[in-house]
């Protein structure tokens, strides 16, 4: 079996050597997983910058509700006449910021990039199971991005019903201008995006299941691969449900059906729709929407596991527990969606049930956080920028995750639902944590992607400004939420009890601006280092996983000769008895006789016998059993 795999791989490789690669096939319609990963990453970064600028715009409105900024009119035209933003446009900004960040940056930009890059590399595969599907996945995603950005050039403005696009607001154009053509474009963009995710997901799952190299059994896979694999499963099962929600909404809007609509009198006009229910949409949406937050955070957790272990020079603590907790999160993520709907009029008893499942999902998350800390304990920690971001990720994951205990509790959610508390919660636990996981991944695998190193000093500057900035932005929002300030409010001036928060808004906005400008350090570092960075060595972080056994220069098929065979798990860092503090997965146990442990042989008696003989000869303790 193994020999056929290798010979097939080699033949495949030879056959492709004769291809003439044009600019178009190499950089644009590439089917190479490494190039597609870079395409995903750069598109993701562009989208992140765009969405971040949107957030700065609405933060400016919130901090200075009574000030004119004539410069805004230059950029936004009629949406900011006289330098003051219109409420409809504010809602558009909020909506598109959320959509882009959640879907384009943290879903496609994160798992698109790192699943594509690392699944073939870390499993020892020449490429994805279906390179063509992989290419299509990217181009569907790219088209979705273009359409979403294009909606800013529509006269009635982009979609503005919130990123959750609850009907009837999203389906009745008379209720808000953004629900005209802008909403149609949103729906088209999202459908294309889901197609991209499904193509990608099928590809990731089949690659993980079928294309592992010799010796790479499931329990020898790095936690990154486990995370990507489970993420792909969650995505594949939940995204199609969003298609159905989106298609039905499209029918309601454009064909005149009543799936979500009933009993409406909008702007004095009695609408003919009858018999639908807006609650139905919420169920369909959150059936994707909640697993979506795990789609966003699980790859970040996977990347963080790998980075923390590598840079602590210590095995990840409780590898099996980490995998089982990911599996637990995967399964539970499908039965908790109702916690977004405690006060929407869903049967209250059902709310109670969802509350129980929701709080159960906190257990595997807690296990993960504790295991990270245990990994740091008695490590030999090296603070690369990637490691800093990984530590920041754990910090955000804990701070944001803990407030989930309020929101998951139906009784407490009554008062906190849809307030700034929710904004603070999810921006920390899925926004900041995932972005930090992603940035950690970028800093860590940059040498693999571009063959060069990023500047570490700029990396630290970027980390500290972003880390402090994110806490200053999101932490105060908890208190606004406890006071009862609703999210998506255009200004706080209409209520006397919100007056006191305007000073806090100033702090938040300034922090956001500084943190936003700090991203320039990253962008400069990222793009300049592609050409001017220091040349990377093959294994700059002394890491164990397979991707660091490939040559620095990217070649088609990843490994010049045979695909390496895997003998051990990926976390043999600082194993006692070995001369270096890492043992790559490709090193057989026969070469590390001085450091082998009884556990390594998994009950293989012949191997234990040989090891014992060696132990006797070299005065090492004899393995029992």
């Amino acid at each position, binding site marked *: 079996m193994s020999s056929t795999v290798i010979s097939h791989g080699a033949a495949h490789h030879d056959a492709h050597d004769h291809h003439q690669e044009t600019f178009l096939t190499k950089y644009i319609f590439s089917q190479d997983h490494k190039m597609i990963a870079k395409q995903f990453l750069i598109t993701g970064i562009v989208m992140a910058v765009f969405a971040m600028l949107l957030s700065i715009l609405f933060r400016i409105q919130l901090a200075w509700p009574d000030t004119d*900024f*004539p410069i805004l009119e230059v950029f936004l035209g009629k949406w900011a006449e*006289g*330098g003051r933003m219109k409420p409809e446009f504010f*809602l558009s900004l909020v909506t598109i910021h959320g959509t882009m960040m959640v879907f384009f940056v943290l879903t496609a930009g994160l798992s698109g990039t790192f699943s594509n890059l690392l699944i073939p590399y870390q499993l020892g595969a020449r490429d994805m199971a279906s390179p063509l599907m992989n290419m299509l996945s990217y181009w569907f995603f790219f088209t979705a991005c273009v359409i979403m950005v294009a909606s800013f050039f529509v006269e009635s403005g982009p979609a503005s019903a919130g990123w959750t696009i*609850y*009907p*009837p607001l999203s389906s009745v154009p008379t*209720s808000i201008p953004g629900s005209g053509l802008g909403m149609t474009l949103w729906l088209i963009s999202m459908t294309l995006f889901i197609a991209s995710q499904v193509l990608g997901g099928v590809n990731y799952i089949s690659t993980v299941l079928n294309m592992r190299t010799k010796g790479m059994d499931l329990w020898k896979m790095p936690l990154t691969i486990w995370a990507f694999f489970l993420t792909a499963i969650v995505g594949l099962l939940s995204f199609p449900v969003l298609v159905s929600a989106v298609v039905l909404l499209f029918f309601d809007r454009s064909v005149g059906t009543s799936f979500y*609509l*009933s009993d*409406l009198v*909008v702007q004095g006009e009695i609408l003919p729709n009858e018999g639908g*229910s*807006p609650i139905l949409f919420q169920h369909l949406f959150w059936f994707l929407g909640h697993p979506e937050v795990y789609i966003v955070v699980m790859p970040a957790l996977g990347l963080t596991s790998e980075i923390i272990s590598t840079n602590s020079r*210590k*095995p990840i*603590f*409780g590898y099996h527990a980490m995998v089982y907790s990911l599996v637990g999160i995967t399964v539970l993520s499908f039965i908790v969606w109702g916690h977004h709907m405690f*006060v*929407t*009029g869903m049967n*209250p008893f059902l709310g*109670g049930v969802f509350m*129980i499942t929701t709080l159960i999902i906190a*257990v595997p998350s*807690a*296990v993960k*956080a504790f295991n990270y800390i245990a990994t740091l*304990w*008695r*490590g*030999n*920690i090296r*603070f690369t920028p990637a490691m*800093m971001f990984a530590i920041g990720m754990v*910090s955000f994951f*804990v701070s944001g995750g803990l*407030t989930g*205990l309020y929101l998951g*509790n*139906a*009784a407490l959610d*009554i*008062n906190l*639902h849809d307030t700034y508390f929710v904004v603070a919660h999810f921006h920390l636990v899925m926004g900041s944590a995932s972005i930090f996981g992603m940035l950690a991944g970028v800093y860590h695998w940059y040498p693999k992607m571009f063959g060069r190193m990023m500047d*570490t000093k*700029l990396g630290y500057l970027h980390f500290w400004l972003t880390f402090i900035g994110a806490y200053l932005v999101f*932490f*105060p929002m908890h*208190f606004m939420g*406890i006071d*009862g300030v609703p999210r*998506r*409010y*255009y*200004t706080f001036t*209409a209520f006397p*009890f919100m007056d006191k928060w305007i000073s*806090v808004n100033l702090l938040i906005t300034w922090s956001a601006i500084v943190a936003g400008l700090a991203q320039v350090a990253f962008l400069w570092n990222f793009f300049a280092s592609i050409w001017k960075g220091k040349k990377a060595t093959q294994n700059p972080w002394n890491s164990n996983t397979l991707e660091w056994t490939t040559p620095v220069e990217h070649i088609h098929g990843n490994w010049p000769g045979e695909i390496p065979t895997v003998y051990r798990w990926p976390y043999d860092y600082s194993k006692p008895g070995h001369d270096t503090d890492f043992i790559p997965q490709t090193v057989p146990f026969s070469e590390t006789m001085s450091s082998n442990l009884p556990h390594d042989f998994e009950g293989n008696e012949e191997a234990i016998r040989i090891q014992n003989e060696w132990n006797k000869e070299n005065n090492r303790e004899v393995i029992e059993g």
Partner: protein
Amino acid sequence: MKFKINNRFRAVLGCLLAVGLLFSTPSFAFQQDSLAQDTAVSATADTVDEGEADTAATGVVADTTAAEGEAATATTTTSSSSSSSSTVVDEGPQIDPQVYKNMTYYILLFLIVCTVVAVVGKVLAIYELTRKMNGKYNPFANNTFQSVLLVIFLVAFLGFVYYGYAVWGDWAWRSAVTEHGERIDTMFIITTVIITIVLVLVHILLLTFPYIYRMRKGTKAYYYPHNDTIEKIWTIVPAVVLTVLVLFGFFTWRSITNVPEDLQKSAIQVEVLGEQFQWQIRYPGADGVIGKRNYKMTTPMNSYGIDFNDKHAWDDIQASDIVIPVNKSVRFHIISKDIIHSFYIPDFRVQINAVPGMTNYFQFTPTMTTEDMREKMNDPKYDFVMLCNKICGSGHYNMQKKVVVVTEEEYKEWLSTQNKYFTEDLQKEFAAVDSGDSKEFTTASLN
């Protein structure tokens, strides 16, 4: 190679600064005031200090300092010019050129910051290089530095959390003034205590371990792949704590939402209808029953869409505010006319969405009158407020209704002064529709 690129970068930057200077001259000439001059001078002094560190970049720094002076002036003039520019905009679509100029200044200011960062970076690099040449370079110096920063961050973070709880928490926290709200508050406080302990402990461990176990010369990590006992402990302990919270929460939630039927009927009934961007309130009148509503009967006069075929509707009372008696159970029927809104009273710990096509209910008992609350808050203008908490369009941010809690006598007195929905005009309209168009109405509703 590297040096060349650096030079090119400086040249480009220098050009940009020169362009900025060119822009700024006219405004600099006549918009100078003493304040601007002060800031300009101090800014110049700052940059000179930093600039002197790097002799290689003197030329650029000279430019830099001058331009920063300009930029600082621009910043101070912005505020004064913005008011005048807005009046200009009102007259026509023309935008004051000053606006563009200000923008240029901000961009220049940012570029200067970037230059400073680059210069500091270069200085550090040179410093490192000299250390290496002298053989004194410690490859772990930065490692230690970053771990120390993490510890400093820990202290700052804990201080920040404390500040948040003490100041913002104090601003945010008002005890609930309803019966169920008090139970929610107890649970809120218990949850807060638990999560604060976890937050602090986890962060202390997360941010001190990096310092204690930082990589130094000769250190080695301890190979410790797993410990099933410990893992079991930190699976079971959170599970137990969560079980307690879940049970507590579940029973509280049930007690709030699952009101026995006799209590539902004995409560005061109030209907609240949300529409873009206002609320309408309906009290049941003397018969204690809220009349039916049929959205198809909405007319300009009967904007509520009350179905006056139902005689219960005839005595329904229209109110401008929500007025409820203290210590009496009130059952709110929440409906929507157009899109989803949310009926949210933070002080009462009450929230339920207003969804078109269905009625949601929330029953609660207020325990404090508005008067008492004003006394307690020491704020004679304090009012309970009900606000919309589900995105509903351009007016979402200002969709509110005053909630007044009064004594029972005051409530009865107030109720008797309110107008009925079924006004004389509506009666006429209803009579006309009833006699002539009733058939048409039924066929219309079939579509």
